[in-house]
């Protein structure tokens, strides 16, 4: 596998985390334009941990994600009462504030005679853990996908579980869910924290691969993109956001003739897609059709089991 492919695949993997993070919130019916804040917070926190405190990589990543989750917890409360567009803009404002704070954030220690640490708008260089420990790009890519697989399994299990069902109930009709006994406060805060954690994993992985990060990476473009990935790939399954990321980064990146025109083409395609499929390629109806009708058609002739319905087996809907 050549270096370029590894790089593209790594990027797809890393940005999938933030896409999944926005997707989780969309499942509960909230639009967030601000998940990049947690991506950023974790990038800095984990970078500080490994590059300045000498922690091992796994601890740094975990630390970064936990700090991001804590920040999400803090954000959850003031935004709890906000609904719809107000929530979206609130998260946007928060994320921009975080970015701007990082533009002036300075924390440096001297290591081996050199100043290491976040340096305001110059960013945070020298996060060289992977480099210093001889982790090849291929190894790192496998790490990314390993963790991503774990997160996808989490989504899959969650989808089958009560938690996932409750999230979807909130996403479908919050009022109705409350009228059926769902404790909105608890589940919304939980969703925000989980989403922050997941975005955080992505951020920590990002900073260690690039060895360097600067605040302007975490702008609103990243935020809206993360949301857009889910909307393009489809909101019916957690594979939807991945598909969206893969389409943007993978497909278009690789088609060299579009260099310089990439956004014009991509933007136009997205706009057209959203007209035809406003909830993405793999939206709930497609997923329903694939899982239920296809299953039925395939299994129909082989076995006839009138009692055990596909409905139960299909409860896997993540």
């Amino acid at each position, binding site marked *: 596998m050549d270096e370029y492919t590894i790089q593209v695949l790594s990027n797809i993997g890393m940005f999938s985390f933030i896409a999944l993070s926005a997707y989780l919130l969309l499942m509960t019916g909230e639009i967030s334009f601000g998940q990049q804040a947690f991506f950023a917070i974790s990038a800095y926190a984990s970078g500080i941990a490994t590059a300045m405190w000498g922690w091992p990589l796994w601890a740094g990543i975990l630390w970064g994600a936990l700090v991001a989750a804590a920040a999400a917890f803090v954000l959850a409360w003031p935004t709890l009462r906000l609904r719809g567009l107000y929530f979206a*803009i609130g998260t946007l404002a928060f994320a921009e504030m975080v970015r701007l704070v990082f533009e002036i954030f300075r924390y440096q220690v001297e290591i081996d005679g050199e100043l290491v640490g976040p340096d305001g708008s110059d960013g945070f260089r020298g996060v060289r853990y992977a480099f210093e420990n001889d982790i090849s790009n291929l190894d790192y890519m496998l790490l990314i996908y390993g963790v991503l697989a774990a997160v996808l399994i989490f989504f899959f299990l969650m989808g089958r579980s009560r938690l996932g069902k409750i999230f979807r109930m909130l996403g479908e009709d919050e009022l109705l869910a409350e009228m059926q006994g769902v404790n909105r406060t608890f589940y919304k805060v939980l969703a925000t924290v989980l989403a922050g954690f997941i975005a955080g994993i992505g951020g920590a992985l990002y900073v260690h691969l690039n060895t360097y990060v600067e605040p302007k990476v975490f702008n609103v*473009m990243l935020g809206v993109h993360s949301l857009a990935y889910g909307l393009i790939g489809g909101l019916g399954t957690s594979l939807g956001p991945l598909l969206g990321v893969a389409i943007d980064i993978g497909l278009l990146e690789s088609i060299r003739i579009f260099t310089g025109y990439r*956004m014009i083409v991509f933007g136009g395609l997205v706009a057209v897609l*959203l007209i035809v499929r*406003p909830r993405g390629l793999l939206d709930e109806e497609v997923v329903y059709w694939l899982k239920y009708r296809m299953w039925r058609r395939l299994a129909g002739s082989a076995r006839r089991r009138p009692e055990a319905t596909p409905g139960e087996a299909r409860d896997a809907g993540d």
Partner: protein
Amino acid sequence: MIDFIQNTVDGIMIGSRYSLLAIGFTLIFGVMRRLNLSYGPSIMLGVFVGTFLFVQYRAGWFAIAAATVLGAVLAGIYVERLCFWAIRQGAALASMVSSFAIWMQLEELTTLVFPDRTYPFPRLTGARPFELAGINIQSTYLIMFGCAVAIMGALSFMLYRTRFGLALRAVSENPLAARFMGVATGRITFLAFVLASAIGGFAGYLIAANEQQVTPLFGLWATFKGMIAMMLGGMGSVPGAILGGFLLGVVESQATWYLGTEIRDIAAYGLLFVFLVARPGGLLGQRRAERERLALRRV
């Protein structure tokens, strides 16, 4: 104390830029209940058309202003047809993301055709700043302030004294009911969009003329400032947009004076956040029931 007053006056003057931007934003939102993330970039396209005329043909200020407005309107129509009209009713999120996609498209288009970092734009007036009761006032800002107020007056007249305005308000209140009463909601929405783009284009012209230059960063900046000012004043309220712009301008100039330019933007977003949490309806507070109806709209 004199500083505070000077900053406030400056803030209001500077804030009129934001007010002008916010008016268009809020008009679109009021009618469609959706955010148009391409608003700034559409204006930017218009402004670049204006600068093109200036650089290539040394055109007069009227032609440039007209071209700017026209460019913004054309871009606005493109966005409206593709991102809003074409997408079915219940899919507000799809419209917003689509408008974001077109934002990127318009930005890239602009940077392709105009690759330089900055382009000159003819200035508004050569007049020098003057003093009034010990406070410095820049004439260009005064013009913008005047325009903002004039536009608000004209809009209020239109909204409350003409049939078109009535139809617009009807569609903003309840599109379904309006349709049942024979209002051509599609056409009204389209016209509102055109109007908003025209106002935006004019705002863009004034801002660029004040800066005497244009850069590709204009689109993002305009969208954000317009959006913040709109939220501060209350989504869907035109007088709110004006006040919101002033408020934003004042907070920014005070923050810059007392805390430094780095804090300025943090203060702007902080202000927005505080308003969202404490008074989401904005300055001209929307009623709670109205807000809930807005927000509970299905995605």
